[in-house]
Each structure stands twice: as structure tokens, then as C-alpha cells.
């Protein structure tokens, strides 16, 4: 029996009344990839933050390579051989790769010797792990996949034997994700121990040797990956059976609702984000826009939702929409029958400090039904909120709570309830299930499909290919501001879409 690389014994951590981690014990063998899966808020990140010294556990012990280790801060974690690759990279954008790797690990006051030494070591690391990057490129000149490699190299440069990756594929194309998994394989072969935190079942199945499932702060199971399947893991995560695929009948597309011709969008710094796209969304169908984040999908949604100006022609029910100037704001769009579930519910869709009942009117607060003389009819708002909370099963069912006090899934239910209940002709949906737990994903997907079945048009933007596949009746792929092609979900696969997402033009798009 080998000594475990990491052993956690009875870790508990509470934030006020919230028990984020409760008596968690795991043991990870050296030279393996161990997955930790769980819904958002299940306590995965807290656990890893304890391991990396950001938080101190209330109870419990950490053993590294058979030695009881105290990790009061990240310096201690690095000294113990633990490296972390965060979901959001911690890189200085206008520094070179080499400078970023050395940052915080300089040998002395003078930079040149450190850099020279780092350059040599980096070369050895690159060859050992086949992790090639150009050390003299600036971070803002290289792609996200490369940036992630820099993060991994940073950890290796600090002699990490144990590597923690937090949701590493969130920003990657499928191809980049595959590359990442090949790198992880290589690292494992060299004897490194890897902990992979994710909420994507597919990645767990593909990449890991063992997997631990967390639910509500507790470790509900640790199993060998080869001996389990996605359905079982999903059930362990949620605590009940879940439908991973959306049940839906074939679409019956009707007349065109939204017609986009040669739409262009330039952002505030003058960069063209949407470079002349054409797209039609018909009544009774869901059109999914696939693409890696940052290829113009967000800007597309924002123009249609009245959040930024654009140029070109967009017709809604045959009537041209103003794309800039008066009549192009969110109020005008709502009046034209466009509802919008925005990509970022915390910064856009909700006012986090407002009560739920105030948020239920957000964007529709000028509706005459919510006015009483010169005042807002708060009683009517609250009554409306109660109806929506019940219908959309928002928990806890308390309209007086501030939006920030709901979980991600319930926040999203508030937004979806508000938008869908307006019975719009066109629903714009951005990342409807980002940061949403599986149970709520199922519910939100059902609501979107139900709206489609009422003959409404839906334009969906998501970076989750799985979501695009399971919801869309037609898929358009965006890359660098262009639509690379349209596909029917049953006539394509992830590989083909992945190529389109990476900008490789398909045959006869």
C-alpha cells in the first residue's frame, strides 16, 4: 500500500451558519488523477481553498505524503509541493510568459539572473512534459489555452508535485480541452498527482482515475471512475434521479420572427466584435449559438437586447429594429416583444441588493400594472412575485430576501420567471445554466422548451456544447465575429462543431 499523496481527515469549515465542508475525508494516491465533482455551492472550492491555505479549516487534518502538514497560507502550500491553477487565471497581461512564471519566485533584487535561470529551467520543464510555450510572448498575445499552460508551468516551476485544477475547461474549446487532458495524462505519467475540480460529468469520465462526489458540503461517495457512469454520478450529486437529456418533441418552425442581416457590432474600444452576420430565428424553434466565449456571441445578444449599439438590419416580426440612438434601448426591445435572460445574472439580470420582489419588476418596472398614481404599486409587485415564486419553485419562497441571498440556480429561476412570464415573441437566452445546479438546469431547460412549444422563437447562446446540443433545433457556430456555419443537431457531432468553433471552416457552411 503506497502512502497517499494527499490525505484529508475530517475537514470541517463553516461560514457563519453555512456549513461549507462537513467532516470530509479523502485520500488520493500519488500519480493519479482524482476528480472532485459537485454542484455549485457543494463545497468543492472551499475544500481546495483549505488545501491551498486560503482558508483555515475549523476541524480536521491535512496529510501530505504521509506527513501531517499545517497549511496556514499559500506560501506553505507551495512549500508542501501543492500548485493551483485557478478558474480565472492569475497572470499579468502585459508581462511576458517568462516574467509571469518568475513573478513571486524571484531569487533576489535583480531580475536578470532570475530570468536567465527561469529560462533554462522552463526549457527543461517544457521538454519533460511537452508543454511548449514561447517564453517571450506577452500574455495578452497568446490564447487562453496557452495561458492555462503558463499557469501549469508556474506551478511546476515552483516544484509542485500535487496540482489542483479548478474548472479548467470553462474557457477552452473542445480541442483545447482535449489537449489539456493529454497534458494531464503526461503529468500523471511523470508521477504528479492531480486533483481536477469540475461540474462536467464528461470530463470526469474521460480524465480521472477516481472521483469523489460532493453534495451540500459533504462527501457523498468516492468511486473508481471505471466502475461508475454519468447517470450514477449525477444522481449522487443531486440526491435524486435526473434527466440529463431534455425531453422534447421535434420543432415545428413557423414564420420568421427575428431576421438578422449583415449585423455588425463595434465595442467601446473600437474593436469589431460582430463582423456582419446573417441569421433567422423562426417561431417555435430554438436556435443555439455555439462558440468559445469571446467570439462575439455576447455582443450579438447585447445588441438584440438593446444593451449596445450595432449596425445592419434586424427585423422583428417584419418590423426593423433601431440598432442605435433613440428606440434602441432595453425598454424599446421589451415593448417589441423581446425578452432577455442575460449572460451575467449577477451584474445584469438582477440587482443583487434588491429584494426578490423588486427584481421581479426589473426591466418591466414601467409596466402600468406596477404603477399606482405617482408611486410604484409595491403590493401588486409582491403579489406578482409570490405567483412567480410558486410557479417556478424558487427556494426559499421568500420574496423579501435580497437576490444575493438566493443560490445561483434560484437567482436564475427568478430571471427566467420574469422573462418567460411576459410571454415574449422572442426570448434571448445567454448562458442560462452557468453556475446553476443540475436540478435547476433541468427545470430551466424544460421552461425554455415549453416556451418553444407555445410557438415562440428562442435564441440561445451558451458555451456549454452539451447544452447547445440538448436544447437547440438548429445550431449556428460563431468564431471571431462570424457565423462559421449552421448545422442540425442530429446531423453533426461535437468534433465537427469543435472545428468550427476553432475557426476551421466547414464544407459548404
Amino acid at each position, binding site marked *: 500500500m503506497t502512502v497517499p499523496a494527499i490525505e484529508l481527515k475530517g475537514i470541517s469549515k463553516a461560514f457563519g451558519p453555512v456549513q461549507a465542508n462537513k467532516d470530509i475525508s479523502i485520500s488520493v494516491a500519488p500519480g493519479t488523477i482524482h476528480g472532485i465533482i459537485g454542484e455549485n455551492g457543494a463545497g468543492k472550492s472551499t475544500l481546495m481553498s483549505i488545501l491551498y491555505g486560503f482558508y483555515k479549516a475549523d476541524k480536521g487534518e491535512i496529510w501530505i505524503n504521509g506527513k501531517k502538514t499545517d497549511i496556514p497560507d499559500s506560501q506553505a502550500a507551495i512549500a508542501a509541493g501543492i500548485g493551483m491553477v485557478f478558474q480565472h487565471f492569475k497572470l499579468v497581461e502585459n508581462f511576458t510568459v517568462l516574467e509571469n512564471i518568475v513573478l513571486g519566485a524571484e531569487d533576489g533584487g535583480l531580475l536578470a539572473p532570475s530570468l536567465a535561470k527561469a529560462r533554462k529551467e522552463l526549457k527543461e520543464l517544457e521538454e519533460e512534459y511537452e508543454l511548449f510555450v514561447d517564453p517571450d510572448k506577452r500574455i495578452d498575445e497568446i490564447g487562453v489555452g496557452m495561458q492555462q499552460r503558463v499557469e501549469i508551468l508556474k506551478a511546476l516551476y515552483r516544484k509542485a508535485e500535487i496540482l489542483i485544477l479548478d474548472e479548467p475547461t470553462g474557457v477552452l474549446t473542445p480541442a483545447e480541452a482535449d489537449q489539456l487532458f493529454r497534458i494531464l495524462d503526461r503529468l500523471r505519467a511523470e508521477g504528479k498527482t492531480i486533483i481536477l475540480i469540475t461540474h462536467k460529468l464528461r470530463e470526469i469520465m474521460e480524465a480521472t482515475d477516481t472521483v469523489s462526489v460532493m453534495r451540500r458540503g459533504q462527501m457523498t461517495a468516492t468511486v473508481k471512475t471505471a466502475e461508475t457512469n454519468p447517470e450514477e454520478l449525477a444522481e449522487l450529486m443531486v440526491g435524486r434521479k435526473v434527466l440529463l437529456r431534455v425531453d422534447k418533441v421535434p420543432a415545428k418552425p413557423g414564420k420568421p420572427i427575428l431576421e438578422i442581416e449583415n449585423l455588425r457590432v463595434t465595442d467601446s474600444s473600437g474593436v469589431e466584435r460582430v463582423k456582419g452576420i446573417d441569421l433567422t430565428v423562426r417561431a417555435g424553434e430554438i436556435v443555439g449559438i455555439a462558440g468559445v466565449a469571446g467570439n462575439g456571441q455576447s455582443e450579438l445578444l447585447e445588441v438584440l437586447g438593446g444593451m449596445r449599439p450595432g449596425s445592419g438590419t434586424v427585423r422583428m416580426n417584419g418590423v426593423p429594429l433601431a440598432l442605435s440612438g433613440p428606440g434602441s434601448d432595453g425598454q424599446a426591445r421589451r415593448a417589441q416583444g423581446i425578452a432577455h435572460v442575460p449572460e451575467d445574472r449577477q*451584474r445584469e439580470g438582477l440587482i443583487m441588493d434588491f429584494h426578490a420582489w423588486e427584481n421581479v419588476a426589473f426591466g418591466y418596472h414601467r409596466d402600468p400594472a406596477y404603477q399606482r398614481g405617482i*408611486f*410604484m404599486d409595491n403590493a401588486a409587485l409582491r403579489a406578482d412575485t409570490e405567483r412567480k415564486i410558486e410557479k417556478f419553485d424558487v427556494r426559499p419562497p421568500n420574496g423579501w430576501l435580497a437576490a444575493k441571498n438566493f443560490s445561483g440556480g434560484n437567482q436564475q429561476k427568478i430571471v427566467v420567471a420574469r422573462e418567460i412570464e411576459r410571454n415574449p415573441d422572442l426570448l434571448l437566452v445567454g448562458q442560462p445554466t452557468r453556475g446553476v445546479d443540475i436540478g435547476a438546469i433541468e427545470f430551466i431547460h424544460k421552461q425554455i422548451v415549453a416556451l418553444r412549444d407555445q410557438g415562440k422563437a428562442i435564441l440561445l447562446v451558451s458555451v456549454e456544447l452539451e447544452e447547445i446540443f440538448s436544447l437547440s433545433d438548429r445550431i449556428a457556430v460563431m468564431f471571431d465575429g462570424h457565423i462559421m456555419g449552421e448545422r442540425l443537431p442530429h446531423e453533426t457531432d461535437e468534433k465537427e462543431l469543435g472545428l468550427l468553433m476553432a475557426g476551421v471552416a466547414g464544407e459548404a457552411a
Partner: protein
Amino acid sequence: MDKMPKWADVILIPLISLILAAILSTLVILAIGENPVEAVNLMVTGALGSTYGWGYTLYYATNFMFTGLAVAVAFHARLFNIGGEGQAMLGGLGVAMVCLYVPWPHWSIALLAAMAAAMLFGAAWAAIPAYLQAKRGSHIVITTIMFNFIAAALLNYMLVNVMRPAGSQDPATARFPEAVHLPTLHEILAPIGINFSKAAPANISLIVALLACVVVWALIWRTRLGYEIRAYGHSETGAVYAGISPVRITIVAMLISGALAGLMAINNVMGEAERLVMNSTEGAGFIGIAVALMGRSHPFGVFLAAILFGFLYQGGAELALWTSIPRELIVVIQALVILFTGALDNMVRMPLEKLFLALRKEAN
């Protein structure tokens, strides 16, 4: 979950801040060899021990309510209006013009006209920084500060070159006619048998200020405009999503803020001095910032904080009058209160939040 109960946030934190400021002030008074107990005694009797003292305390408080509300409204739109001082000066100019150049049959009509002029002038003075912020992105803090200086210079010019009565050496306007004299608290309370000091400057503007508190409360929490202002203040991207124009909210919130600051002039110019003098605002525009901070931008909090600062102003004046504690020290004490209640808010808040979390954990 919120980190601590609301009462702790609204009452406990300001109270602890005040106590800290008091302790430090005590040490300062001790250090210069004066008796702090006697000093407190003097302040309390001076500011609250007689209707004369109350009259001054409430007079100052009236000023601070207007400027405090002004800052609070802008705060709700996440705009930091430092220009209350200049807007109040311009309000004074408007009041002086209305009172001097129009013959009024009765003070009540004159008051309404003066209020309108004060608000108009104050709002106009806030409009330019608001426009620059909304359309050009010039930071409102910088522009409003600069507009304070411009206001002072403008007032200087107006008083010296335009409005000064011929033959007068004093850079001030002529006295307002008797017809626009506002009833003082003495005159208001006498008919109902309360003998309020005749010499104290508190006047009917106090009631206008209290009404303004109620109106601002209703505006912020009960109207659609208030909803939009708060939404914009919490999240600009959220406002854009909801079709709320950031340009419009920035300008409207600043106009309301400027109007409230300008409104102060009915108290100090029309109610007290009954003429427009240089530096008539006496820093009330800046005190308004502390008042709004301490009052958590809530009109009721602003009301309480304004009374407190009124007390400090009047008590401080008494202290300077009766002890050898120098005038500058009074300013130090006032500054300490501002420092602790406004700027050092987090110093008290963070340990307190930890304490409440720990207490709650025990309870579980």
C-alpha cells in the same frame, strides 16, 4: 445571509464610532490641560440646555438636513456629489435675487418663490458636472469640487460688483425687505403657548427640511424614478440591461441633489442672515457628506445625523466662548466625528461582523 442584523448596521456601528471619536476627543482635551467633563457639560448645556441653544442646534441641523439629503440622493445613484457647498452658494444667490428684486405681499408666497429659485440655481450648478460626467466621463468628484471654487468666485463677483448697495463697503447684498421675513420658531410656537427663545435663528425652514426628508424617502423607495436611481447605483450594467439610461439617471439624480443643496439657502440666507453675505454656507455642504455617510443615505438617518452635527456645531461654539479651548480644537473634535463615522466605518464594521458571525455560530 446578511452578515449582521440590521439594527447593528444602522445603530450600533454609528454609536461605536461616536464613542471612539468621543474618547479620542477626551484625550485631546486632556492633553491640552482642560477638563473634558466640564467641556462636555458646557457643550450639552450650551446646545441643548435652553431653547436658545436648541434654536441654534436646530438651525444648523436644518442646513445639514438639506445638504445631507443632497449627498444621499446622489449616493443612491453611486454619484459622489462633493459640490453641495457651491450648489448651496448658488441657491443663496437665487434666494437673494427673488427676495430683493421682486416685491412680495406675504412671506409665504416669497418662501415658495425662494424655494423654487434656490432649487433651480442649485440644480443648474449641479447640471454642468452632471452633464460632463454623463456624456464625457469627467469624474463627478473632481468637477463638483472645482465648481465649489467657481461658485465662490462667482458669488464674490456678484456681491462685490453687482449686488452690493451703492456706498456700502461690505461685500454683501442689502437687507431683504420686512415682507419676506420668515417666521422663527419663537413666532411659530408662541401662539400655542411655548416660549421659544427670540434670539435663536431656527425658523420655518426646519419644517421644510423635515418635509424634504419625507419627500426624499418617498422618492427613493416609492417611485419609479427612485427605483431606477437605486438600480443604476447598484449596477450600471444592470441598468443598461433594463433599459434605464445611465445618462438620464446621472443627470436627474444630480439635478435633484443640487436642488436639495440649493434649498439650504432658504434657511441660512432667507431665514437667518436675511441678506446674502460672502461664505454664507459656512462649510455646510461638506458637513452634508458626513451626515449622509453617517445616516446611511437614508432620510431618517440623515435627520438624526443632522441633529447630531447641529449639536456639535452649537456645542462647539459654546465651548469656544466659555473656555480657553481654542476654536481650532472644536474643528478637531468635529473632524474626529466625521473621520470615525464616515471614513473609518470599516474599522468598526469588520470586527463587529466577525463578532456577530461568531455569536451566531455559538447559537447553532
